[in-house]
C-alpha cells in the first residue's frame, strides 16, 4: 500500500450539482485531488434537501447528498454577485480542472465560460455536462438523467415485451455518466500532463447513453429493424429471466446460454425430462418458444426458496442470483464485506455508512472523507488558497457574497 494517493496535487473547481458531476469529482477527491465544490444556500442543490417524518426540511442531513458528494471541500459563493465571480475566477486560476452542469451558456453570463477561463488559466480543463451537449438546436434543454435517457433510446428499450417504455431505478443514468466523466477527465489530464494543453470536454448525457445501447442502434443501422422492449429476455440466451420463488414478491434471476446449461437447470428444477422436450432441446427451440419456456420454468421455481435455488444453481455452475431490493443487498455478506461500505464522519450527522468506489486497487488506499455541510470549508479555502484575511471574509459575508 502506498501512502500517496495518485491525484494529490490536482485541484478541481466543481460548479456541478445534483448527481452526475458531483459524484464524478467524489471519485477524484477520493484519489487525492483537492475538490472545491462551489455552491450557494440561495439556490441549494436539490439533493441536499432532506425531509423529516414531520415534514421539516434540512439542508445538511441528506443521506443522498452524503452518499454522493464525499471527499471534497464546500464553499458558498453566490455567483449572481460580481465579487463572487471574481473569487471563482481566482480559484480557477489555482485549479487544474473545472466541472459544471449548468444549462448551456449560464456560466458565460458570469464570465466563467471556457473561453473566459482559458484566458485566466491557459491549460485549464473544463468539463461541461448537459442533457444534449453544448451545441445543436436543442442545446439549451434542461433535464436530469432519468428524463434525458428517453431522448437517447434507452427508455424505449426498457419495459415488458409488448408494453410501453419504462423509467429506470437509481436515477439511471446519472451515476453511469459520473463514471464516464472520471474517465474523460483523467484522459484529458493525462494529455495535459504530457503536452501542457488543456481543453473543453463536452458531455451530452444522451449521447453517452446511446453509446451504451449498441445492440439496438447497430440493429437499426444494419437491418433497419426498430425493436421495442424485451423485458428480461435476451436474443442469445433462453431461459433468461426473473422467476418467482416461494414467498411474497421473491424472485431469482437465471441466465442460460447453452444446451448443457439448460440440461443442468432442468436437473436442478427436478424435471430432467423437460431438457429433452423437442420444444426446448436446442437454444433455437427455446428462443422460438420462449413464452412457453418461461412458464414451464416459473412453474418449477415456485417450489424452491430463494437462497436454496440460487445455491443449487451456482453449485451446477449456472449464472443465477437472488433479486435484491436495497435491504437484501445490504444484508448480502459478500457485499457487506466488499469494502464498498465505509464509515465516514460528517459534521451534522456524525459517523454514517457511505457507499464508496466500487473498484479495488492493490496499491492505492483511497482518501475517503465524509461529505461537507454547506460551505463548511469556506473560510479555510479562502484563507488557504486566496490568502484572504478574517476581516475580508467577514466583509464578503456581510455583503451576502458568501451565502
Amino acid at each position, binding site marked *: 500500500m502506498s501512502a500517496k494517493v495518485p491525484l494529490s496535487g490536482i485541484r478541481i473547481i466543481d460548479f456541478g450539482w445534483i448527481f452526475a458531476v458531483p459524484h464524478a469529482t467524489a471519485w477524484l477527491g477520493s484519489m487525492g485531488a483537492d475538490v472545491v465544490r462551489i455552491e450557494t444556500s440561495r439556490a441549494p442543490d436539490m439533493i441536499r434537501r432532506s425531509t423529516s417524518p414531520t415534514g421539516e426540511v434540512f439542508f445538511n442531513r441528506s443521506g443522498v447528498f452524503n452518499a454522493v458528494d464525499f471527499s471534497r471541500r464546500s464553499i458558498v459563493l453566490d455567483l449572481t454577485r460580481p465579487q463572487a465571480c471574481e473569487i471563482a475566477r481566482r480559484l480557477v486560476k489555482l485549479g487544474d480542472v473545472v466541472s459544471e452542469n449548468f444549462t448551456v451558456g449560464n456560466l458565460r453570463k458570469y464570465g466563467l465560460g471556457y473561453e473566459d477561463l482559458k484566458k485566466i488559466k491557459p491549460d485549464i480543463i473544463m468539463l461541461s455536462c448537459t442533457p444534449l451537449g453544448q451545441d445543436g438546436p436543442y442545446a439549451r434543454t434542461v433535464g436530469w438523467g432519468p428524463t434525458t435517457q428517453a431522448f437517447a433510446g434507452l427508455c424505449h428499450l426498457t*419495459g415488458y415485451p409488448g408494453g410501453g417504455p419504462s423509467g429506470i431505478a437509481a436515477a439511471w443514468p446519472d451515476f453511469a455518466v459520473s463514471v*464516464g466523466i472520471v474517465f474523460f477527465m483523467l484522459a484529458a489530464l493525462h494529455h495535459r500532463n504530457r503536452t501542457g494543453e488543456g*481543453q473543453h470536454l*463536452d458531455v451530452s448525457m444522451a449521447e453517452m447513453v*446511446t453509446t451504451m445501447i449498441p445492440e439496438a442502434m447497430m440493429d437499426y443501422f444494419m437491418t433497419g429493424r426498430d425493436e421495442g422492449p424485451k423485458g428480461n429476455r435476451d436474443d442469445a440466451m433462453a431461459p433468461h429471466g426473473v422467476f418467482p420463488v416461494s414467498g411474497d414478491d421473491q424472485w431469482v434471476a437465471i441466465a442460460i446460454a447453452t444446451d448443457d446449461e439448460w440440461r443442468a437447470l432442468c436437473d436442478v428444477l427436478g424435471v430432467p425430462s423437460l431438457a429433452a422436450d423437442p420444444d426446448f432441446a436446442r437454444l433455437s427451440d427455446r428462443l422460438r418458444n420462449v413464452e412457453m419456456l418461461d412458464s414451464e420454468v416459473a412453474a418449477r421455481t415456485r417450489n424452491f426458496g430463494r437462497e436454496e435455488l440460487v445455491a443449487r444453481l451456482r453449485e451446477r455452475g449456472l449464472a443465477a442470483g437472488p433479486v435484491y431490493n436495497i435491504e437484501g443487498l445490504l444484508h448480502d455478506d459478500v457485499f457487506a464485506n466488499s469494502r464498498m461500505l465505509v464509515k465516514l464522519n460528517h459534521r451534522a450527522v456524525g459517523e454514517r455508512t457511505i457507499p464508496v468506489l466500487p473498484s479495488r486497487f492493490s496499491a*492505492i488506499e483511497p482518501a475517503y472523507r465524509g461529505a461537507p455541510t454547506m460551505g463548511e470549508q469556506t473560510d479555510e479555502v479562502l484563507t488557504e488558497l486566496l490568502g484572504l484575511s478574517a476581516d475580508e471574509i467577514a466583509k464578503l459575508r456581510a455583503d451576502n457574497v458568501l451565502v
Partner: protein
Amino acid sequence: MNDAGEYRELPQALDGIRVVELPCLDTIPFMAAAMAAKLFADFGAEAIKVEPPRTGAKERGLGPFRDARLDPETGGLHLFLNTNKLGVTLDLERPRGRDLVLRLLESADIVFNPNLPAVNERIGLSWRTLVERFPKLIVVSVTFFGAENAYRNFRGGDLVATHMSGVGWGTPWNQVTDLPNQPPLRIGGRQSDYLCAYTAAASAMIALFHRDATGAGQHVDVSQWLSMVNMMRPAMGIYSHESPGNPIYDRVAKRIKRGSPWVYPCKDGWVTFAAGGDRFWNAWKPLMGNPAWMNQEIFATPTLRMDNVEKIEAKIREWLPALTRQEAFEKAQGHHIPCFPVYSPAEVAANPQYAARHFFVEHDHPVAGRVTMPGAPCKFGGTPWRVKRGAPRLGEHNRKVLGEQLKLGDAELGALAKEGVI
C-alpha cells in the same frame, strides 16, 4: 454525419498508451472488457484485441447481420466494439498461446481480463502471476463479481448483476401495480456490461496516474455486480441516514407504485416529464394557463406535492394526451421544465440534435462496407474521438503484432497457424 476525417491532424488524449484485451471464455456474452478497450482505442490508445482462433470473439457471432447472413466480419456489435483495435488470434487454452500473451504484455501498459479467477488459474494468467511478472503493468480484472471475494468464481452477467444490485428491483420506476405479473426488470440492452466497461476504464486511468507518480503497476479489481451497486448510492445513503419511520426510507425498499413515474403517454407516443421542484412547478403554472388547482394549499411546497403526487399525476395524464411528443418537448422546455420525447432507435438515429453534433459516424469497412455507428461519448475539444481504422478481420494483425512486435518469423507464424494456436 461525420465522415470521421475532419480531426485527423489533431492528437488524441491517450496516444502512446498500449492496451491488451483478453477474450472472455465464458458462455455468457460479456462485453465489458471489449468496451473498456474500445474506450481507450477510440481516444488514441493502441488496443490489441486477443481473440480465440477460428471462432473469434463472442460478439462476432451475435450480429446484427445485414440480410441475416452470418459472417464473423460484418456483425454490427463486433463493428461497434472493435473499430480502432488491432486484432490477433491466440488460443489461451494452449501453453504456446499463453506464452505469446505474456510476451504481448511485456510492452503493454494495461490489460483487461474478463475471465473468472478459476479460469485464469487454469490457463496461467491469474492476476498475481501477471503483477509479479510485470511490475509496471496495470492488470484490470473485469469480472462478474470481482476477483477476490467469495462470489469470485460464480457466473453472472448483465441480468444477474442488474438484479443482484437492486437496480432491477426498482425498474420500471413507479409503474408497477401488479406485483406477481410485473417482475423486477432488466434495463434495455446490456447496461451492466457497458457500465462495468466505463468503470474499468475510469479505474484503469486512476492506476495509470498512480504509475506516473510511483512507477508501479498494480491489480485493479472491477466487478460488474459492484459497478451496478454503485448506481444504488442514493438508496444506500437514505438507509444510513433516515429513520425507518420516514416515508422515504420505506419507499426505497418497495417496488409497488408509490409516486410519479418518469414516463407518460401523450398523443403520438410517450414523453418523460418531471416538475415537482419549486423552480419547475412555478414554471409549469404559466404553461398550464395558471389554473386554480395549481394554487391550492395542498400543492404549496415540494413536500406537500409529494404527499399529493397522485392528484398531480392525474392532471399530467389529462394534459399530455392533447400534445404530440414534439409539442410537449418544445412547450415544456420553452418553460425550462425537464421533458423529453421517448425515441426508438430509428428516431434516435434521425434526430436533428445528434445530427448537428455529428454524433453518429460513418466509415468504410473492407468487408462490411459502409458502417454507421454511435460515436464519441464525450466531445474533447482538443483531442477528439475518431475512427482511425475499421474493426479487424479475424487474425488481421497477427503478422503486424506477432511478427513485427514479437519478432516471430514467417516460418514460425506458419507453424503456429498450422497448430491452431493463432
